[in-house]
């Protein structure tokens, strides 16, 4: 029954493609059986929406008269420090960037009300952004100061380029200490007061294609409300993580690097986010279509929350100390019930990833495909899989002796 992406695209063009979300496919296969469903269904859509710190934008502001070389200078966007280390007018802004005068955690927990992620949201919302830059001046780029409003519509290029998104599974965070702690996994109350998790579970892209059999470099995706592409595996991509029998990793594993034109994205799907006591970041919406090329690929997409397990990690001690000790393993089915039993205590659970938004992404992508507006792409190269032999390396610190020269 094997189908090809070209055949599926032909059906999409004719408006005849059969598409289901990764949630709908579970019941559909239960009703029809794998064989029949694999013949009928062409695409399964996935979605995830949550804070993704390794996100950012690069953009080109155009040349001022007289010219200024921002590369090597200092540039602020709404007081948030941008990265100015390219040519004259190219900048990068990361989601975690902060204004110089943000008190950070001087008064703990810091609020982090406005950072890079918020500038990105404001920019994509069409708001004017205040750019203030200083440079050192050269013969060809004499200007040393620039203060101007910039707006997305006037930029030559504005591109969302995220180094690591859409983690395939993730830690579940707890706190066994005596004090409330403030983490990138949210506020964690003492004595296992609550437990926070951070993936969309059965709807999450890489949990539906656990061995990256269809998702690869060049895959066209839903990104930030527009379309984008997978450019590479994300940083910390770790396909070698332990897996269940269904192939699904039991801890954080694969990741994606993604890219897309910011000008066609929307602030609904790129939301400036503040993690109390941790920092500013960006919540990103991503959806990946999975072409149902075989029964095997279909079977992977039928994974349920009850079949996806994640480790519960103590963020008061094990995580900061980089210990691999875990408090236990739980399924997303248990996590989504609102409470789990851990160390004989019933602990309420909360999510940092929005499931309703993940559903909306999967449905939007489904609609685009059914209307013939979104064609699938053939990956130009696969993501490194289990066989790639990647080991996820910690930092091996080497002391710097006083007398050693570079």
């Amino acid at each position, binding site marked *: 029954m094997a189908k090809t992406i070209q055949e599926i695209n032909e059906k999409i063009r004719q408006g005849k493609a059969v598409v289901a979300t990764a949630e709908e496919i579970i019941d559909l296969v239960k009703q029809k059986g794998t064989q029949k469903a694999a013949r009928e269904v062409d695409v399964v859509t996935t979605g995830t929406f*949550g804070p993704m710190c390794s996100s950012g934008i690069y953009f080109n502001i155009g040349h001022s008269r007289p010219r200024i070389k921002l590369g090597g200078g200092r540039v602020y966007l709404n007081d948030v420090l941008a990265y100015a280390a390219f040519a004259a007018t190219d900048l990068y802004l990361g989601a975690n960037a902060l204004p110089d005068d943000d008190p950070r955690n001087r008064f703990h927990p810091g609020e982090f009300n406005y950072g890079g992620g918020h500038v990105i949201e404001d920019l994509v919302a069409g708001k004017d952004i205040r750019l203030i830059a200083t440079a050192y001046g050269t013969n060809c780029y004499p200007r040393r100061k620039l203060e101007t409003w910039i707006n997305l519509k006037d930029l030559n290029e504005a591109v969302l380029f995220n180094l690591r998104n859409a983690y395939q599974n993730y830690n579940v965070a707890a706190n066994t200490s005596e004090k409330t702690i403030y983490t990138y996994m949210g506020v964690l*109350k003492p004595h296992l007061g609550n437990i926070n998790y951070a993936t969309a579970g059965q709807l999450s892209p890489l949990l539906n294609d656990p061995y990256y059999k269809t998702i690869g470099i060049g895959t066209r995706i839903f990104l930030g409300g527009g379309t984008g592409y997978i450019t590479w595996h994300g940083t910390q991509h770790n396909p070698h993580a332990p897996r269940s029998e269904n192939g699904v990793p039991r801890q954080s594993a694969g990741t994606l690097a993604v890219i897309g034109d910011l000008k066609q994205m929307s602030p609904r799907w790129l939301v400036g*986010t*503040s993690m109390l006591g941790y920092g500013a970041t960006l919540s990103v919406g991503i959806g990946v279509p999975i072409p149902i090329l075989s029964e095997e690929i279909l079977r992977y997409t039928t994974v349920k929350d009850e079949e996806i397990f994640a480790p519960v990690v103590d963020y008061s001690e094990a995580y900061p100390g980089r210990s691999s000790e875990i408090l236990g393993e739980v399924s997303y089915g248990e996590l989504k019930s609102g409470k789990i039993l851990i160390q004989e205590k019933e602990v309420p659970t909360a999510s*940092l990833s929005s*499931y309703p938004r993940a559903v909306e992404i999967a449905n939007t992508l489904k609609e685009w495909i059914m209307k013939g507006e979104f064609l699938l792409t053939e990956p130009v190269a696969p993501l490194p899989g289990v066989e790639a032999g990647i080991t996820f390396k910690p930092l091996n610190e080497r002391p710097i002796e006083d007398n050693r020269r570079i």
Partner: protein
Amino acid sequence: MAISKRVVLHFPSRLVEQPIIYKLVKDYNLVLNILKASVTPKEEGLLILELSGAREDYDRGIQYLTDIGVRIQSLGQNIMRNDARCTHCGACVVICPTGALTLDPKTRMVNFHEDKCTACELCVLACPPRAMEVHF
């Protein structure tokens, strides 16, 4: 008929040093539970109370407060959810101590029950997209 309501009282600076709460108890037979108080001498005072008592006593007590110049708001008005910013992640539901923020198990959307909110404001900074707003 007995009644129990949560109210927010704003005191102008001239009233801050008067024993108004004492009068509510003594003259109007009201039972009160202070949920939040922020009183700075010579400046404005803010008090969030749960007031219980007979309907008639409650009405007279509120009349007394209004007459002496206390501005009264009902509690639900003060903590608001900016629905345009809420992404329904659910990070707030384990933070809210009174069950005013809950997750619908079917839709997995976050519901805000204003009647259960005591305006403790714990959700305000714990909300990642900062959708919970204080309007006193």
